[in-house]
């Protein structure tokens, strides 16, 4: 029996804008086991991204319990959450979210700097990561000098920097043409094969089908919590 790495019980998230309260998540129960590859699908505004932000400790639930690797996230301080984002979770965004003024090398270096990895080790690690995503020859390129697929590969290298257990990807292929999109999905498959736990939010049924299981979300609730195939 593999360990449950993500464990959510009745998680709710409400946003207040003025007097109006909007409930993005209305009581999510969700478990993910270590090493799983999960696709998350659902219409726009269904709460997929909010779920992912909470899973990645970028946001905290309004109520409910969230345990990450058996530890309660609800009661953690801002600094502890920052540490989790730095070491335990890697984010990949639709809009890449690279630092525009920094080179591929520097972008991948950022999480290592925050983790206080020493200079030489940092350098070796960055080169290793960029080689792994096939960008060994683009270390000095800035985002403006790269294609969308290349930028997303830099983002994946950055997500892997501190060897997190979980990779959270929010529409990673949304801004890419289908060919580079498929290359990215192939990269996720490889990561999965190497033992990483992967959650991918996507609109694309083909990509979701790469997952061992598909979670379908609608109106802040889980509609189907597909079983392990």
């Amino acid at each position: 029996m593999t360990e449950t790495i993500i464990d959510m019980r009745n998680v709710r998230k409400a946003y207040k804008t003025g007097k109006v309260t909007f409930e993005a998540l209305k009581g999510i129960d969700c478990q993910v086991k270590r090493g799983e590859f999960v696709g998350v699908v659902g219409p726009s505004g269904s709460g997929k991204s909010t779920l992912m932000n909470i899973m990645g400790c970028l946001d905290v639930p309004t109520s409910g319990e969230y345990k990450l690797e058996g530890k309660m996230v609800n009661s953690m301080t801002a600094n502890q959450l920052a540490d989790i984002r730095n070491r335990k979770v890697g984010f990949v965004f639709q809009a890449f979210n690279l630092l525009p003024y920094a080179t591929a090398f520097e972008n991948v270096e950022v999480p290592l700097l925050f983790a206080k990895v020493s200079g030489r080790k940092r350098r070796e690690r960055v080169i290793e990561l960029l080689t792994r995503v096939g960008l060994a020859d683009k270390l000095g390129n800035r985002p403006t000098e790269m294609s969308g697929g290349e930028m997303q590969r830099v983002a994946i290298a950055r997500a892997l920097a501190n060897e997190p257990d979980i990779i959270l990807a929010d529409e990673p292929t949304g801004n890419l043409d289908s060919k580079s999109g498929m290359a990215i999905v192939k990269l996720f498959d490889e990561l999965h094969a190497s033992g990483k736990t992967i959650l991918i939010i996507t609109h694309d049924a083909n990509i979701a089908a790469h997952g061992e299981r598909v979670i379908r979300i609608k109106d802040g609730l889980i509609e189907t919590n597909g079983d392990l195939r």
Partner: protein
Amino acid sequence: MNLTMMYNLFIRDFRKQKKRITLTLVALAWGTMSIMLLLAFGEGLHRQMALNQRGLGNNIAVMWGGQTTKAFKGLGKGRPIRFQAEDPEYIAARIPEIKQIAGEYSRWGVKVQYKDQIVNEHITGIYPNFEDMRFHIPQMGGRMINQIDMEHRRRVAFLGWDLSERLFGEEDPIGKQILVNSTPFIVIGVMAEKMQMNSYEGMDENLLAMPSTTFKAIFGDPWLDDIVYQPHDPKDMPIIEKKLYEVLGAKYKFDPADDRTLQIWDVVSSQEEFTNIMIGIKMFLGIIGSLTLLIAGVGVANIMYVSIKERTREIGIKMAVGAKKKLILSQFLTEALMITFTGGAIGMTISYLLTEGFKRLPLSPDAADVVDFMGRPTVSFEIGFVVIAILGLMGLFSGLFPAMRAASVNPVESLRYE
């Protein structure tokens, strides 16, 4: 965050808001210059005034006789106290705290003549130690009154530089004969020019001094006009004052508690007062300068707010990959300090070059007179330190609030897909 990255950020910001940052740097440099130059002006003024203050004498006090206001030992009040020629030695023998002491005779409106030049002048009868106590320092080629002049009651005269010029013009006065009250005197020296801010018996530039023994022999004054003394340690002034009342009270039979019997002008303590006034002036100048710099500080805060607004996404990205609030805070604080100190360094360099340049500037005689009085702006180590401290404080304050805003950016909001 490593430094190269910090520097890259700064440069990128600079490119993006070139005009705004340039203007702020100008404002910072200008503010720094205004503080620096005002303080430098204050420092120059202080140094010059202190120098001029010393024109009167070297840590001295001057004492005159007064009047009794209390009856004492059967003697009535209203009795004048006057000093006799032997009193300086009498006092020196009884008050060991005194290093040097001298009696002084003084007389106004005495006819002084050289050839057909006739002037009415103030003359004094003094001791050789006036050279040190009252800065009666002779110009090259002449000398001050000495002990032998005193013993032999020689008819020799030591002239103030202005009097000398009025009598002799371009001529060399040393060794020339003049008539003082129709008695022939030989000029032995002319006082070196000095800046004198205060006086008690006319300005030294116009005096004619002779040995006090000669003065007494010619004019027959029974009383000294005043006594000048100098302590070993200026801190002993109050003790000496107290002892003077006791010693002279015993001699002239007055109550030592009767403080109208002696009038003592302690130049040292009035110098302390002067120092306090100068500190007040410098603080005033510093505050005016700081207010100018404050405006530049508002500029820095403004730039930081704009820059943070444009960089919320960047802040969000950093937070998403594990940056703590403290780190974001220090990043923006460092940036504010970098801008502040860059502007400050420009201002300090310009101020320093200006003051150094002014020191080397050749001056017209009229301007030189002003400088003799006001001094030349001087940048001291302390001024540099004060300005750097003010800049640091201001950089911190103008950076703190924008940086706090940056640290409170919500990463979810800032990363929401555009």
